[in-house]
Structures are given as C-alpha cells and as structure tokens.
C-alpha cells in the first residue's frame, strides 16, 4: 500500500534502506546521521526488517564490516557524519577498488575546527575522489528515492561501486517533510536482489584484496576510470525506470529550476536549494531573470549536463557549502569543477563563488539577494571582480 508519512531526512534514509531490504547494517553513533541507525535498529528489533545489525567499534570498523558483508554477497548499509566520515577514510579506496557496491549514508557535519556540529559539506566532499558514486539530495523524499536509485546504479554489473548518499545534517536530516513510501512490489521491480559476481564462499574460494604489482596499478586505475565513463548511461536508465515505476519526474543528473529564460543562475547542492528557490521567486518578482541548477550527482560529475544547462546564462553564482582552503579559487570545491565544465563552451558565462552555509550557518534569503546583486554588478561591469565572496564578511 502506498503510504504518505511525515519523515525527517534520517527517517527517510532508514525507510529507503528498509525498502531496499538491506541484509547487513553496521552502526556507530555520531550526530546527526545516527538517527538513521536509531530507526533501523527499531525496525530490526520489531521484526520489520530482517537484517544483521552490527555495532562497529568506530567508523573505520563500520565501513570494514559492510565491506566484508558486501564481499560475501550481502546488500550492506552503513553511514556516518563529520569526523566519522574522515575516520573511515582508509577503507574508502579499497571499497571502490575491490568493487563492493554497499551504501554509506552521510548526513553532513562540520569537521572539527574544533568541535562544531552544524552542517557543512566538507566532510563528504573530502572523500569525493575515492572512486565512489556520490550525490546530494534536497528533500526527505529525494533521500528515500536516492537510496534506492544508488543501490540500483551501484549494483549494476557495469558499475559495481560503493555509494555515498549525502544529505545536509539537521537542515534535512532532522526536519520532517512529506514522504511517499511505495509498495514493496514496486521496489522489487526496480531493484532486483544483489548478486555478487565473485562472493566469498567456501564452495568457490577466491582471494579478495590481494597485493598487486606497481605495474598493475596503472591499468587497474584505467579500468576504474573507464567504468566511470559508463556510469552516466546506467544512471539515465535507472532514473528513467524509477520515474516510470514510482511516478516521479527526476532529471537524472541535475535539477533545473526556472532555467527556461534565465540570464543568471545559482549553482548549489543540497538542501539549501530549497531556500534558493524561494529567493528566486522573490528576485523574479523584481524582474531579475534568475534560475537554479542543482547537481544530483557529484561523482560522476555531470559535466555535459551542467554545461548545457548553463550555456545561455550570463553569470553563475556557485554557492559553496564546503571548503577548499588554498584551492585555485581560494574558496570552495564546486567552483573548480563548475568552471572546468564551462571552459569549452563557445560563449562562457561569468562564474564566481560564494562561501555560505559553512559550519551549520543558515543561508538566508538576504544572502541569495546579495549574491544576485553581485552577479548583476558583474554583468553590468563586464568583469569578474572576485572569484570568491565570503558571505557576511565582505566590505560593502
């Protein structure tokens, strides 16, 4: 029976794992993601979900446990936040290199500078180059849906990669919204049971994770890179199937909002996109043709789709919710790849970035108005005065 419930991001992620019928779960507490494990442990205790629920002794152990479970052929699920995400770092690369398609939910939390607990995307963004699939969501409904879509894409025989399914801590993880829960039959049609190609089994012994020679490292990297060339097609197929079965309207790679006639655009990931949409409505009432592009995937980066969506605008504001100290633009991470994606366009838009929503800060409507003002000034002056603005810390 299709149900509609008020669920927070964490509860929605837990429901996603339940509907995906995960077989092994490994937990370790750290807020804000920990609410996912609270929900899941309840489900396992009630007999709603038939899964092994294991307490890890830390995040490194958590990811190692689900890696082992995945190697044995189970659909496995784990998650973390902030410094927990970075504590498990060592296991990320072998998980992707060994091709174990388990899932890790991340509810963002600021890395310790020291001891902030608000939402900031730097924790997960630090792990973006570890060979995992990765993406941010904007609503609890989307986190439920992306949990299923990520398992489907990750477990595809053409892909076989682990997935980071990221949501903003608190803004999304702890604020309830309406979530439509589908029928089990729909989910089973969309997501077939996981079949490991070479599971660890006493009847057909194999070695996982052996030492390879240095001259085998390069071809292995090339093979992994080639896999990522195939992923976009799998994402397209999976999203089309998902939209058909569940009656949704997701664009596979990016969400476009009011981009039909836009001259200016915000480029933003995660739940702040919801505030951004409101700001756009107000700005449009004042006659500014502005829209929004929100990437649903960070890995693989939707280069082509972003370039196409932003090919007609005059200026883009990249709203950075993570830090890249000393990076090429001295600000966030997104602008690097955004600018690189737009470089080959015949007519490139101007691109600048705004550091906002860091350390759990709320991005206010006024902040978006400020960004729009700067964009307009840039176009008027025909000059990118600065590539990074620290919202709230700029001289007027």
């Amino acid at each position: 029976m299709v149900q509609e419930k008020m669920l927070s991001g964490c509860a929605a992620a837990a429901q996603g794992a339940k509907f995906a019928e995960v077989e092994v779960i490994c937990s370790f507490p750290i807020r804000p993601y920990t609410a996912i494990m609270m929900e899941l442990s309840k489900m396992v205790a009630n007999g709603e979900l038939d899964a092994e629920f294991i307490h890890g002794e830390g995040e490194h152990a958590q990811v190692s446990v689900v890696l082992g479970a995945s190697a044995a052929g189970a659909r496995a699920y784990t998650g973390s936040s902030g410094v927990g995400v970075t504590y498990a770092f060592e296991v990320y690369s072998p998980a992707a290199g060994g091709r174990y398609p388990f899932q890790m939910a991340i509810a963002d939390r600021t890395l310790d500078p020291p001891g902030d607990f608000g939402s900031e995307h730097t924790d997960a963004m630090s792990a973006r180059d570890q060979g995992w699939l990765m993406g941010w969501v904007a609503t609890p409904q989307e986190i439920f849906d992306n949990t299923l879509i990520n398992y489907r894409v990750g477990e595809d025989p053409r892909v076989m990669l682990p997935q980071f399914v990221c949501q903003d801590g608190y803004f999304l993880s702890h604020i309830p919204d309406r979530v439509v829960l589908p029928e089990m039959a729909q989910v089973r049609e969309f997501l077939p049971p996981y079949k490991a190609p070479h599971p660890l089994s006493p009847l057909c012994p194999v070695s996982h994770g052996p030492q390879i020679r240095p001259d085998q490292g390069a071809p292995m990297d090339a093979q992994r890179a080639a896999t990522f060339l195939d992923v976009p097609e799998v994402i397209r197929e999976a999203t089309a199937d998902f939209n058909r079965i569940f009656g949704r309207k997701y664009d596979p790679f990016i969400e476009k909002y009011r981009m039909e006639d836009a001259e200016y655009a915000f480029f933003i990931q995660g739940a702040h996109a919801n505030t951004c949409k409101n700001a756009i409505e107000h700005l449009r009432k004042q006659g500014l043709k502005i829209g929004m592009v929100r990437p649903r995937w960070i890995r693989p980066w939707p280069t082509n789709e972003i370039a196409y969506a932003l090919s007609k605008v005059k200026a883009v504001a990249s709203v950075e919710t993570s830090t890249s100290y000393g990076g090429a633009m001295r600000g966030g991470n997104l602008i690097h790849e955004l600018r690189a994606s737009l470089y080959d366009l015949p007519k490139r838009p101007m691109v600048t970035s705004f550091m906002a929503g860091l350390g759990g800060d709320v991005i206010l409507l006024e902040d978006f108005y400020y960004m729009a003002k700067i964009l307009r000034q840039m176009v008027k002056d025909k000059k990118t005065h600065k590539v990074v603005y620290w919202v709230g810390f700029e001289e007027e």
Partner: protein
Amino acid sequence: MKTKTGKTKEKDRRINVQGLKAKALKAKAVPVKIRKAASNATPAAPGTPIMPEAIFGTIRVPRDREVPFGAITPAPVRQQDLFITSNWRVVRPVIDHEKCTRCFSCYISCPDSCWSFNEAEEKMEWNWKFCKGCQICVHECPADALEAVPELDFEDGVVRLEKPF
C-alpha cells in the same frame, strides 16, 4: 551479533547458518575470469550538441595488461602468479650447492617462503617471483653458501628497466 531486543523469536536472533549454507550452495562455482575493460564513453544525449561526452575520449587497457575485476583472483593457490611481487629487488641470493649443508636455515628465515627443498635433486631451490632481496638468508646461512649478487649482473635482472620481466 544481532542486536534485536524485545520479544523477537529466538530463532530469528541467530545468524541464519542454514540460510547462508543454502545461499553458498546456490552460488555457482564460477571460475574467476578476467573481465573486459569497460566499454568507454556513452553516446551524447539527444539535444546536447555543445559538449558531447566524447570529450572524455576512450580508455583502452590492452588485454595483456588488464587486471582481474576488483583484483579478485582464484583461491586457494600455492603461488599467486597473477601478482608477482619481486620487481623491486636490487640483489638476489645465489647459492653454492657444494657448500650448502641442507640445514634449512634459509628456508626457516625467509619471510616470504622463497626457499624450498627439491627432494628429487636433493637441493635448495630459490623462488625468483617473490624474493625481495632482503638478504636475511645470506646472513643466516651458517655454511656461507649464499651470496648477494646485484640484479644488474643478470640477463634477466629485474632492475633492468628495458626488460623488467
């Protein structure tokens, strides 16, 4: 390891060994094959003329350099020939069979089990595929039958860049 609480049936709490067994039995004994390198760029979506995904080019790994999928290999094997680990050896131990007393000191001291006893010929045998040239055997040999010789002195020496193997 299940952390179920409340009034769950005892049966459900235990790890389902029978189920795992049945699953393992169902898992076909598929020999590990070297998987083909993934097939390159996806075609550009219709209506996206600006930057086709062909911009990423293609990646072709030659057949003879392909690594098994996820580096997953058959097991158990006595020796894993897919992953030979000795290509950074600088010296190798050379044995003088006349001096060798078959005391097995080299066999015992080798951290990589590279010495074995050939019973038919009654002499020690060295495994070039996994010896890293650490020279522990050379130092341990009580009969002074082993000598560390630079790899460069050999035609098939592994440090010869023009012919690594």
